[in-house]
Every structure is written in structure tokens, then in C-alpha cells.
């Protein structure tokens, strides 16, 4: 077989598979997004033009879902960066059993969001949860209080994904050339100066990757929030979309909604990949 045949044989099935099972369905739903189709009835789909899009983009309730999601993304990603980077700074020295400790710290992010998230319901329980007991908060309502629920979900997300930021930060920190620190020491530079002038600038690109990646994932969050809270104040975009499509069966409308979300995700992905390639080249 010629190299050309082998190349095509190796690559084309994958591309075809992804087109059939990812791109084709999206085209399929693009068609539905211009109709009032409901998958729960046998009524034929009527073409309604851009009406779905117009409705969604002017509906104040949908905008509330976007605001909630933005709040969630900011709180949970900021938390993850602070905790994750903090842990990396602590671990970036001579610590006995460092390898074992790092692996143990990474455990939360490998576990199923849905299943472990569910267990946080017990931890958050107002009367016998260990969080209220440990913090001495009495009967504090984490998940039932509409003002707190979203932050409780974010807190669980921070617990799960800080290790991810830590992992990437550690890689960045260990790549900072030692001689820079030695030079700083000779110059009697203070530790603040060393941190802001040497450590931070060199670690920033890799932390940036962690931030964009987590932003993208937080924007898409479904499992954790859906399982932990039924509060409307914690209804993220993905949850609204799910309810619209599979509980209210507004298939046409939800297809249009999915497209709006899709455009946003593709935009963030683009930024992410650009950044990834930039860092890779160094």
C-alpha cells in the first residue's frame, strides 16, 4: 500500500465518524431551530423563521440564566485559581512524600461530578451535614436558600477542580529556571519582588490555559448544578436548555437555544486553542 492510501485509511474513518455523529446532528437541529416542532407530539413541524431566535434573545428569563451562569463561572474559576495556585506554591518545595500527596490531591477531579456531587448533598445537609458541624454554622441552609445555592454549587466545583489548576501551575512552577532565583537571592531581592517579577510572569501562560479551560467547562456545567440544587437561582444555561428540550419538549425552541450556546462555546474554544498553540511553540 502506498503511503497516501495508508494516510487516508488512517485518517478518513475518524473524520467521517465525527462528521456523522457530531456535525450532521447539528445540521439536523439547525433545521428544527426554525420550526415550532415538539418531539412529544406527532404534530408536524411548522416553519416559523427566526421567531425562536428572536424570542430567546429578547426573553428576560433566558438572560437571567446567562447572568447566573456568568456569576457561577466567575466565582468558581476565581476560587479554583486562588486555591489551586496556592496549593501549587505550597507544594513547590522539598516536601516529604510529595508525589503521593500530589496524587491524593488530584483525586477529586478524576471522580464523577454527578455521583460525588450527589454526596455533597449529605455534606451540606443543614441538620446533620459535616460542613455545618465542622464550621459551627448551626442549621445554615446551603442548597435550599435561593441566595446561597449557586455559591454552594460553586464551592463543590472549586473542591473538584482546584487540583486541575494546581497540576498545571506545578508544571509551570517547576519549569522556572532555578538560576533566576539564585540570581535574585544574590541581588537580595525580597520575596515579593521575586514572586511578582520572576515567578508570576513565567507561570502566567500556563495558568492562563487552566483559566480558559476551566471557564469553558464551567460555562457548560450541567451535572453538578442539576444534581445539587433545584433552585431557580442556580439554573445554569445548560440546565435551562435541558429542561426546555427534555422536560418541556420545546424541541424547535431548544434547538435554537442550543445554537446560541454553541456559538458562544465555539468562540471560547477558539481562544483556547489559539492560546494552546502559542504556549506549545515556546
Amino acid at each position, binding site marked *: *500500500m502506498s*503511503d497516501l492510501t*495508508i*494516510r487516508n485509511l*488512517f*485518517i478518513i*474513518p*475518524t*473524520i467521517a*465518524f*465525527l462528521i456523522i*455523529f*457530531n456535525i450532521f*446532528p*447539528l445540521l*439536523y437541529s439547525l433545521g*428544527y431551530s426554525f420550526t415550532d416542532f415538539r*418531539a412529544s407530539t406527532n404534530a408536524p413541524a411548522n416553519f416559523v423563521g427566526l421567531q425562536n431566535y428572536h424570542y430567546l434573545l429578547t426573553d428576560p428569563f433566558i438572560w437571567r440564566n446567562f447572568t447566573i451562569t456568568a456569576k457561577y463561572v466567575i466565582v468558581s474559576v476565581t476560587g479554583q485559581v486562588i486555591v489551586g495556585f496556592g*496549593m501549587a506554591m505550597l*507544594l513547590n*518545595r522539598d*516536601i516529604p512524600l510529595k508525589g503521593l*500527596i500530589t*496524587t491524593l*490531591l488530584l483525586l*477529586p*477531579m*478524576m*471522580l*464523577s461530578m*454527578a*455521583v*460525588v456531587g*450527589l454526596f455533597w*448533598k*449529605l455534606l451540606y445537609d443543614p441538620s*446533620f451535614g*459535616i460542613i455545618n*458541624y465542622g464550621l459551627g454554622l448551626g442549621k445554615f441552609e446551603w442548597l435550599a436558600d435561593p441566595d446561597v445555592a449557586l455559591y454552594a454549587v460553586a464551592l463543590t466545583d472549586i473542591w473538584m477542580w482546584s487540583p*486541575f489548576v494546581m*497540576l*498545571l501551575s506545578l*508544571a509551570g512552577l517547576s519549569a522556572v529556571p*532555578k538560576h533566576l*532565583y539564585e540570581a535574585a537571592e544574590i541581588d537580595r531581592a525580597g520575596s515579593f519582588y521575586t514572586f511578582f517579577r520572576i515567578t508570576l510572569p513565567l507561570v502566567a501562560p*500556563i495558568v492562563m*490555559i487552566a483559566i480558559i*479551560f476551566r471557564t469553558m467547562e464551567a460555562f457548560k456545567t*450541567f451535572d453538578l448544578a442539576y444534581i445539587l440544587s433545584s433552585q431557580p437561582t442556580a439554573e445554569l444555561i*445548560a440546565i435551562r436548555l*435541558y429542561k426546555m*428540550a*427534555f422536560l418541556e419538549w420545546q424541541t424547535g425552541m431548544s*434547538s435554537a437555544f*442550543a445554537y446560541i450556546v*454553541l456559538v458562544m462555546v465555539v468562540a471560547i*474554544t477558539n481562544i483556547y*486553542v489559539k492560546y*494552546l498553540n502559542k*504556549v506549545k511553540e515556546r
Partner: protein
Amino acid sequence: MAAVRTPREIFLNRVAIAAVMVVLLIMLVPIYWIGSTAFKPRNLATTIPPTVFFQPEVSPFVKLMTKRSQLRKPVEQEVYDAAPWWEKMVLDGGEKVVRTGKGKIRPSGYGQRFTNSLIVSIISTFLAVSMGTLTAYGFSRFKVKGEDDWLFFILSTRMLPPVVVAIPMYLMYRVVGLNDSHLGLIILYTAFNLSFSVWIMKGFIDEIPREYEEAALVDGYTRIQAFFKIVLPEAMTGIAATAVFCFITAWNEYAFALIMTNRRAQTAPPYIPSQVGSGLPDWTVIAAGTFLFLLPVAIFTFLLRNHLLRGMSFGAIRK
């Protein structure tokens, strides 16, 4: 860090070690709590103050695997004495094991869901990794027009929110009858993991020197032989790491499983939360189910520890 150690540095290091221990403790409490609740008697699962020391027992696992019903009145002594040891545990908890007319024990839905999880995760991992390895080799060794664009396309399919893909897939599966089937989930998970596997395997294969194959080609190997006899063995560590990553992703997946399956092909992640329901859930049983479900991932995490960085960054960062 520095070779010279001043008293101040030694002190700082000790503070850091103490801080790390505190952080480690906080991070692991939820996981420890799952593990310990899975071995508690029901009345100790929700006590105030929380029960830390207790006599561990396996009754939550017995309850997890069987269908039970509430006892209206205590069973007679003879029945109790005749029951096997594990059934006594259920009876002690004020419940009895449900049997069929022929006296066979009815299992709960957990075993079936766990098996479904295994079937779907293993097959989809195998497909994603084999296709991904071939494709990665293709991109790594041959000139492909618009290579970066193709790779971006492949990655972008991974970034789609599951619910967005699920809406049309649900409609299409309904037409071809793939809803609530193993094959339906396997296809979705393969597609999802395929992009990951291409990206990460490309990194591993890029690292294998081309000279190895070229030497083999000179020796009269065909390209295919060189691929199977030279490249694959060299890439084995990478393939294993990729497979474990794909397995974990499929194993943990929730949204697709929730939407696409409801009984026959349902996997464990949507099943476990559905058991909580309303009222007072038996947290020991939920913990037991969670514990069994998390165990394989926890073991894999340790096996994978040296590859985590690479896997989580799509192969962008290598050590």
C-alpha cells in the same frame, strides 16, 4: 529550593508542610466520608455530632444489591434464625429482602447499571483509542493539507456541550431505535473520546523518532509492518494512558446517559442519584453504591499519576 539552608528557610518549609497537611485533610474529607459512610450502620450515618469511630459492617452493600421492603412487624424468631447472615443484617434494619414467588432473591437495579457502565465504557474506550491511534499516526507522519484546521475541527467536537449534541441525537436515535441501547451510548462516548485520543496520541507518536521506522523501511518492512512492529510497541505506554483517560471519561459521563437511557442501557451515574428520591434516603446505601463506583477510578488515578498533566492539557504540556 536553594542549597544553603538558613533557619528561616527551614522554618518556612515546616510551615508549608503543615499547611499542605491541612489542605490535604480538607480536600480528602468528602472522599473519606463516602468511604466511611459506606460501612456504617444506618443509624450512625446521620448523627450529630458526626460518627467518626464505629464498628464497620457490610450491611450497606447487602442492601445495595438487593430489593427490600419495609417490615410491618418484626419477623418471627424461627424465620430470623433460618436466615443467612447477610439477610439478618437487612432484618436488623427493619427491612426484609424481596423474593419472587419461587423464593429467589430479587436483585436491585445497581448490578445491572454497573455492568452497563462497564460494557459501554470498555467498548467505547477500545474504539476511541484504536481509531485515535491510527489517526494520530496519520497526522504525525504524513503531510495533510490543512492539518491544523483538521485538528482544530477534531478538538472542537469535544468542546460541544453534551446537552447541545443530545437534542438532535435523541431525535435521530428515536428514528433508528437506538434510544436506551448500549450501542447508542457507545457511539456517543466513542465520538466524545475520539477527539481526545487523537490529540493526545499525536503527542505520544510525535515523540517516537521517525528514524526507527525509516530504518525498518530500509530493511524491507512495509509501512504497515513498520507501524505494527515498531511504532505500536513504542507507543504502548501512551496508548495505555490514553485508554485509562478515555475509560474514566466514559465511566463518569452523566448528561448523555441521563438523556439517552432510562432502563435497559442505563449506566450507574444517572442511576445512583435517582435512588435518592424524596423523603429520607438511606445514605449508607448511596455511599456503598458511590464507593464501588469510585473505586476503579481511584485505582486508575494512581496508575496514571505520571500522565495526568499531559492528559488534562490535551497533550499540550509535557513534562
